[in-house]
C-alpha cells in the first residue's frame, strides 16, 4: 500500500440558492455531503460526475479556496482546514491548480513571463535571474518558446493557454496538482497533446494528481483511481479498471453506459 499524500475526511459544504419565481426564497444545496477521499502519492485520482455533482467544489475546498463547513484536509500530516494566513500561503506552494477555462484563468494584462513567474515571486524563491531561467525552462518544457514570455494571453490558442496554465502551476514544483477539467474546452487533437504532456510531467516531477472531469473516456486514460460523485455524495470509488469493468452502483452503471460510441466499439471488437 502506497502512502497517502492528501486526505480529506468528511467534508461538508452547503450553498444557499435563490429559488421561487422572483428569487425571494432560498433553498440549501448540499454541494459536499460527507465526502472523504484519499490521494495516493504519485498516483492520479479522478473525480467524475455530472454538472452539479460537487466535483469542482471539492477541488476548491481541498485547497481552502472556499471555506468548509466541517471536515479535515490532511496534507503531510497537517490539517489545511485549520490553517490560515501565512501558514496556508506557504503550504499552497505544494498544492497547485490548473483550471478549466484557459481563456478566463489567465490575466489578459499580464505577460506570460509574469504569469508563470508570479508564484516564484510571491513565494520568494531564488534570485530574479534564477526565477527568469526557471520560467524559461518551464515554458520550454510545456512546449512553448522562449520568446513567448513577452507575449500576452490573447496571442495564444486554447491549447497553448492551457500549457501556460500548466507551466504556472508546475514552476513551483508542487507535490500535488489539482486539475479541474483541464481539457474539456479543447479540441480532441489538442486534448490528446495536453493529456500526454500531463502524463509525462507527472512522471518526471513525481506529481500526485487530482483530476476532475466529466469525460469518462479521458479519465480512463489518465487515472489510477476514481471517485464517482452525484449530488454532493460519493457514489462509488476504487481503482479505475475495476470500476469501469464492474461498476456496482446503478448511477455508475448509468454514467458508463451513457458514454457515446460504445455500440460501435463492441462491434469492432467482435469483428477483430
Amino acid at each position, binding site marked *: 500500500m502506497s502512502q497517502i499524500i492528501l486526505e480529506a475526511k468528511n467534508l461538508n459544504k452547503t450553498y444557499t440558492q435563490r429559488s421561487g419565481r422572483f428569487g425571494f426564497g432560498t433553498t440549501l444545496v448540499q454541494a459536499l455531503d460527507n465526502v472523504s477521499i484519499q490521494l495516493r502519492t504519485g498516483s492520479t485520482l479522478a473525480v467524475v460526475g455530472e454538472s452539479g455533482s460537487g466535483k469542482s467544489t471539492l477541488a476548491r475546498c481541498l485547497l481552502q479556496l472556499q471555506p468548509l463547513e466541517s471536515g479535515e484536509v490532511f496534507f503531510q500530516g497537517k490539517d489545511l482546514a485549520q490553517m490560515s494566513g501565512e501558514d496556508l500561503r506557504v503550504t499552497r506552494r505544494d498544492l497547485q491548480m490548473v483550471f478549466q477555462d484557459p481563456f478566463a484563468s489567465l490575466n489578459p494584462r499580464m505577460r506570460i513571463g509574469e504569469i508563470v513567474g508570479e508564484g516564484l515571486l510571491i513565494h520568494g524563491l531564488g534570485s530574479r535571474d534564477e526565477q527568469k531561467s526557471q520560467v524559461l525552462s518551464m515554458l520550454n518544457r510545456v512546449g512553448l518558446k522562449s520568446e513567448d514570455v513577452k507575449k500576452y494571453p490573447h496571442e495564444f490558442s486554447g491549447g497553448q493557454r492551457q500549457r501556460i496554465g500548466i507551466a504556472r502551476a508546475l514552476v513551483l514544483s508542487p507535490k500535488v496538482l489539482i486539475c479541474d477539467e483541464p481539457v474539456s474546452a479543447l*479540441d*480532441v487533437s489538442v486534448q*490528446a497533446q495536453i493529456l500526454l504532456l500531463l502524463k509525462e510531467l507527472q512522471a518526471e516531477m513525481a506529481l500526485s494528481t487530482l483530476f476532475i472531469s466529466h469525460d469518462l473516456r479521458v479519465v480512463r486514460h489518465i487515472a489510477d483511481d476514481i471517485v464517482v460523485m452525484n449530488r454532493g455524495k460519493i457514489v462509488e470509488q476504487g481503482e479505475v479498471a475495476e470500476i469501469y469493468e464492474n461498476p456496482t452502483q446503478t448511477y455508475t452503471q448509468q454514467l458508463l453506459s*451513457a458514454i457515446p*460510441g460504445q455500440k*460501435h466499439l463492441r462491434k469492432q471488437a467482435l469483428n477483430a
Partner: protein
Amino acid sequence: MTSILSVKNLTVATKVNASRLLVKNVSFSLQPGKTTCIVGESGSGKSLTALSIMGLLSKQLVQTQGSVVFQEQNLTLFNNSQLREIRGKKIGMIFQEPMTSLNPVLTVGYQIGESLTVHLGLKGAALKARIANLLQQVGIPESRADSYPDELSGGQRQRVMIAMSIACEPLLLIADEPTTALDVTVQAQILKLLDELKTRMNMAMLFITHDFGVVADIANDVVVMFRGEIVETGAVEQVLSNPQHPYTKALLDCVPDAAGKKELKPMDYAWLKGEVTT
C-alpha cells in the same frame, strides 16, 4: 435513392478578402431517413457549412460559389422572404446552446407555437393541442407549456428546442452540436430522441459534432472536414473502422476510449506536406 438536399462545391469566403476561403468546394447530399454527421475540429468549417445551407451566414461572410439544392430548388438563388418560407417549415434547426437560443421572457409553449402560427396558421385550441402533442413527443409534460426557459433544466431546454424544430414536420433537420453542452446521461437521452424522431418522421438529419463517439451512435454517413475542406466521406462503419485519409486516422487516434486499451497518440500533421495546400 433520391436525395432531399444536395450541396455542390459550396465555397464561403470573407467579404474583406475573397481569397480567404473558410469553406472550400464542399459537396455532399442527404437522404430522407438518414443521418449525416459532419465531424471536425473547431475552425474546420462545419458550422459555416450548415449556416450557408440555410442562408444564415453572417454579414462578414459570403458564399462565393456552389449550389444548395433542396427539393429541386436552388436555395442559393432565394431571397430572404423565400428562405423564410423554408426555414423552420421544411428545414428545422437546433443549436448548441439551449440556454441562449430560447427567449427568456416567453413561455416555452409560446415559442413552440410561433412557427406553427407563422407557417401553418394554427390558432386557438388547435394550436394548443399541437403544442401539447409536440411536448409529449419530446418527453416533456404538457403542463410545462406555461413554463419559462429558466424553469427548465439544460436537457429539458434542448428538448424544447427539438420540439420547436420539428413543429412543422420538416423534411430536413439541421442540428449543430446539440448535445455538446449537456451531461453524458442527458446527451444519451437526446441522441436517442433525435434518432427516434428521425425514423418516425422519415427526416433527413444533418448532425454537426466534434465527438466521434456521438458520430458512432447516431450517423449513417460521415463527412470529415479539416480547414474548410472535406477530407473523407463514407458510411459510418467504413470511416470509423477503416479510415482512408491520414487526417481521419490521426484524429481517431486522439480519441481516448472508455475501455482504456488504446494508446493515445498526439496529432500527426506530417501528411499535410504537399497533400493539402493551405
